[in-house]
């Protein structure tokens, strides 16, 4: 996943050299993202409607059904029409916020996703903010004291966490903190009414999933912040700052770090795809009622319309986040702004 970032930074550099004007740059990026979104929609249709074959046959596998019932079911699900017609219906439905109807729950997929969006945003948001803060802080320390014991231990820990499957880390935390934190869900049933009590209860439930997600994503921020600061450290303006008689601490805080922040800031958006993957397993472990758990539940069926809906939302949001990263990079980098 490091190469994902590298690839994008390299692409950004190419564009910088080309010196395209801002409106053209934005239009190009937005157009590219729109094309990607259409591709995601097509891919979703291909994966969940064309490859699996007849959903009615799968659904009625264990029950005796008459041909009339089968035909009725096919008509209700809209799978009796030719493929191209199905695709047009599905594509048109998307514009009206219609993601189809779940096989398992017989409810609109869009409603089910809407209900689960909040918890996922809470989990992902909290973990990302904490990961950015922790990762940058550790990365700055590690780079400033390069090759020290602290640096080597930090890089080692980051590498090890990189090799750890997220769900296993979650399971370990569950077993290590036996009973200290709730093992599943987002709320306890017996908590009194009132904002404070409710929030505390949610925070208590949030601790373990959040720590698990944090442990896996902070390492990227740390490594990027470290290497980015290392690149700045040979710069002459730092020698100048020191020659002025600035304390080491001030040289770092006022001069080196602001210049090294850029890659880490855009990483927040670029890394979103990895965070999304992480939430699926973490939510499955802790039964956190978000999109990840919804995916996990949909896999039991498999509930194809539901899976398709979650796939569209997750993939779509990753594309939007990447677009934001590319646009933000242009806004933040003064070298690009000036041209």
């Amino acid at each position, binding site marked *: *996943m490091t*190469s*994902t970032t590298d*690839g994008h930074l*390299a*692409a950004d550099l190419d564009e910088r050299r080309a010196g395209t004007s801002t409106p053209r740059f934005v239009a190009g990026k937005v157009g590219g993202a729109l*094309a*990607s979104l259409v*591709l*995601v929609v097509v891919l979703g249709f291909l*994966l*969940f409607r064309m*490859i*699996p074959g007849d959903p009615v046959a799968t659904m009625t596998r264990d029950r005796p059904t008459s041909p009339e019932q089968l035909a009725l079911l096919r008509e209700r699900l809209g799978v009796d029409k030719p493929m191209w017609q199905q695709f047009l219906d599905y594509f048109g439905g998307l514009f009206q916020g219609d993601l189809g109807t779940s096989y398992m729950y017989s409810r609109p997929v869009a409603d089910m996703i809407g209900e689960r969006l909040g918890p996922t945003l809470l989990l992902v948001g909290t973990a990302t903010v904490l990961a950015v803060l922790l990762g940058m802080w550790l990365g700055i320390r590690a780079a400033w004291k390069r090759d020290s014991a602290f640096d080597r231990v930090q890089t080692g820990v980051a*590498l*090890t966490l*990189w*090799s*750890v*499957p*997220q*769900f*296993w880390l979650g*399971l*370990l935390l*569950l*077993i290590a903190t*036996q009973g200290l934190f709730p*093992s599943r869900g987002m709320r306890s049933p017996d908590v009194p009414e009132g904002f404070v009590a409710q929030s505390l209860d949610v925070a208590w439930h949030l601790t373990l999933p959040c720590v698990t997600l944090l442990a896996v994503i902070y390492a990227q921020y740390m490594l990027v912040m470290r290497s980015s600061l290392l690149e700045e450290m040979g710069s002459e303006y730092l020698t100048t700052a020191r020659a002025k008689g600035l304390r080491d601490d001030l040289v770092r805080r006022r001069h080196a770090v602001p210049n090294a922040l850029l890659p880490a800031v855009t990483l927040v958006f670029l890394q979103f*795809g*990895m965070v*999304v*993957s992480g939430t*699926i*397993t973490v939510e*499955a*472990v802790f039964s956190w009622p978000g999109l990840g758990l919804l*995916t*996990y539940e949909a*896999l*039991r069926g*498999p509930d*194809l319309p539901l*899976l398709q809906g979650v*796939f569209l939302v*997750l*993939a779509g949001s*990753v*594309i939007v986040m*990447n677009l934001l990263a590319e646009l933000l990079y242009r806004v933040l980098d003064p070298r690009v702004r000036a041209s």
Partner: protein
Amino acid sequence: MTSPAWQRRRTAAGQLWREFRTNRGGLIGLGVLVAIVVLAVLAPLITDEGGLDVITATGSPLEPPSGEYWLGTDVDGRSVLLLTFWGARVSLLVGFAATILSVFIGTLVGIVAAHFRGWPSAVLLRITDFFLVLPSLVLAIALSSVLTKGIWTIVLAVGVTSWPATARLVRAQTLTIESRPYIERATALGGGHGHIIGKHVLPAVLPLVLANTTLVVGSSIIAESTLSFLGLGDPTVVSWGSMLQTALSSGSVTAGAWWYLLPPGLAIVVIVLSFTLVGRALETVLNPRLKAGR
């Protein structure tokens, strides 16, 4: 195979090995990997496969580690040590097979996108970027949920979703190599696409692909365990991911059966970390910029 080119390559390989040996992390990783692979291959010879069968299991459910069962037993009374041992076979098989598929697609797309000009290569590049952005796990989940469950479905799902990074890398390297004068000379002497790619580009790109491959195996093994953990693996085969899934779904984790949880997880960490160490060591040896810079 005694042509000057091959002699030169053999000397280069010897040089590579000498440099690799100076990297302690890489050497440790390589040692661990060789040991694991040998043990996994020999599993049917040194252990009794019958112990994997739920019906003939001899222990009682969830026994803690003892003299008889060194790592305790699982919910069905099978030895956790034996399960972990056999799980290595699935993880390695899927890891290697998915990597071969992924690296093959990635190298092919990368070289074609760099070597040929015009719209086909632009389209290829666009597709690569599209898949690079999409989270591969989400795509792999989607693929393995609609196909028949089984080891080869997992291989396919992991393999066809993890190639874009390799493609990007190979494309960049191919572009660098093709800008060199000796390629121009080969073209001037009448070398066709096949000759240039096969004789010049491929040998120059392969070392880098090799370093990348070792890193891909690690992430493939993690992807395999994640998919199995989500219940998408082959239900008839024991893998580390499926062991962890049973541990959670049977309530063994909440019951505090740490001996059921630690072995498969640690095995994944050790094997992936070893691949990462070897990959990083290879990268350092092969990339002159890293060597001089640090």
